[in-house]
């Protein structure tokens, strides 16, 4: 018997009591709330643990699961030692770099990927939604059909192409193949089809070019979709591992997932260091998404599910 057991038994007893007292609805509500709270605690615990692990001194890392008891708080137990080791400049074959470089690489790659996808997917979605041209139906089916291709099938042939193009160890190998995606085209087509055609025609009569109609009329009108789609693309690019791991060779070009995977081997006995790195790596997307969660969920569900 420990505190956890007592708490669980107490909860059970209260539920039984409510049922016996004929208040089944209240019992159901309490049970529902309790399950949600327990599940939330279980799901949040790795995050809490990670934050504490980042700021615990390596000497007490294993001793306490979360934080040391309050009486033992001091600069000896809670400090920035992990972060300091992590952020200290490191020598590599190409020169001395700090962890900030890898953060910058990740930010750059994810941002560039997002800009490319938003530009090209919205262009294609605009074309499918606004113009009628020969082969539109077939081409759109082909785009949708491409979602059926498992990305892993492409890895070996694209690797050979990248080598032949001389793109090995460059960001081209990551950014160009990922510059458009069927999902984004589909999202933009659906959204732009809802824009009244009269708006476009009116702009044409005023002498606007087709490019301006796309950029200054269609795009602003579907801004919620752009917001949602940006978040999805940014997160995917930020977290992507296989492509950068296969196509990049120089350490100083690596984004965070690849470099942290290296750090796990390098800091085998100081895992506070790579945990601190993981903490820094998941912080930016977490902040972004807690702030913009509505848009993000819209971006995920509007493709497959009608809300």
């Amino acid at each position, binding site marked *: 018997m*420990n505190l*956890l057991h007592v708490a669980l038994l107490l909860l059970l007893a209260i539920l039984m009591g409510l049922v016996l007292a004929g208040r089944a609805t209240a019992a159901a509500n309490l049970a*529902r709330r309790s399950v*949600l709270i327990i599940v939330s605690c279980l*799901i949040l615990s*790795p*995050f809490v643990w*990670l934050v504490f*692990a980042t700021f615990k001194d390596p000497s007490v890392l294993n001793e306490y*699961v979360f934080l040391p008891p309050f009486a033992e708080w001091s600069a000896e137990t809670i400090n920035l030692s992990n972060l300091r080791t992590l952020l200290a400049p490191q020598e590599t074959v190409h020169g001395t770099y700090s962890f900030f470089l890898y953060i910058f690489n990740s930010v750059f790659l994810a941002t560039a990927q997002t800009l490319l996808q938003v*530009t*090209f*997917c919205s*262009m*294609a979605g605009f*074309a499918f939604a*606004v*113009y009628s*041209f020969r082969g539109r139906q077939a081409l759109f089916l*082909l785009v949708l059909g491409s979602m059926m*291709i*498992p*990305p*892993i*099938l*492409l*890895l*070996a*042939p*694209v*690797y*050979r*192409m990248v*080598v032949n193009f001389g793109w090995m160890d460059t960001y081209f190998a990551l950014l160009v*193949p990922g*510059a*458009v995606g069927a999902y984004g*085209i589909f999202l933009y087509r659906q959204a732009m089809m809802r824009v009244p055609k009269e708006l476009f*025609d009116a702009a044409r009569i005023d002498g606007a070019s*087709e490019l301006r109609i796309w950029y200054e009329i269609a795009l602003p009108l579907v801004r919620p979709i752009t917001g949602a789609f940006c978040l999805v693309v940014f997160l995917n690019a930020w*977290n*992507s*591992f*296989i492509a950068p791991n*296969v196509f990049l060779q120089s350490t100083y070009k690596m984004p965070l*997932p690849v470099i*942290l*995977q290296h750090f*796990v081997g390098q800091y085998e006995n100081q895992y506070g260091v790579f*945990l601190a790195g993981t903490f820094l*790596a*998941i912080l930016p*997307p*977490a902040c972004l998404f*807690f702030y913009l969660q509505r848009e993000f*969920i819209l971006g*995920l569900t509007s493709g*497959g*599910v009608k*809300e």
Partner: protein
Amino acid sequence: MNGALTRHFSPAWFFLLPTIAVMGTFLFYPVILAGVMAFQQSSGALAVEWIGWENFQFVLSDPLFYRAARNTLIFAAFSIFLQLPLSLGLAMLLNAKGDRTKGFFRLIIFSPFLVGPIFVGILFAVLFTPRFGMINRFLQYLTGWGLEVNWLSNPAFVLPAIILTALWMYVGFNMIYFLAALQSVSQDLMDAARVDGAGPWQRFLHVTVPAIKPVAVFVVIMSTIGSFQLFELPFALLQGTGGPDNAGLTLVMYLYNHAFVSGDLGLGAAVGWILAMAIFTISMVQIKVSKGGDH
């Protein structure tokens, strides 16, 4: 429509140019190229030799391939029969009328999906540490068992560790889809069933299930496809290996090892095609089965 647009070269082609160029070069052409490469042996990207069906013969007689296939299938089965019911259950708990905390719990349960699979793998590798890891300590505290379990070096516990990690990561993601579907269940129909004396279970079976079925089929298929492509999570958990006795080797890891560790891209392409065909077949079967249930 504007006659000028149909008579002349449609501006649509200008807007489609990047898409056609990129998808043609890096999506459709590589699919064909993979089909060609599957009949070649290569060391690295350039040295190439035609070997007919040998890649397929090698793969289909390789015990390691079946080991990877078995692991992948077990993982997929747990995704569908453990994770998705839990996702649905959580979605139903969240879907109470007029609950203001819904958004709060939804965000918490969904949040692990924001963490990339590599980061999740790195985290959980430490969480699963014997004696010191949080998971082991929690198990010990709750049940008195589990403190010394060596999840990642005991072959019997590697797959359970991967399944648990994936559960943490994806249960909230799938829940979002179920929740969106549940919110579209007609409340009138639900009330009518209640008036007619249908119990909670009957209401679930005859009102909820038919209403969320399209989304459920979508989620099952997506989940299967995702499971077949499992890679980063075990790769990070097991630090790039298949784990002890290859207990955590997945099909994509098998492909990756042959194509990029041993450098035989042809063999990788052959495995890729086998995997793609398997995914395609299973998705088709799932769609057929789901349609067969309609009355």
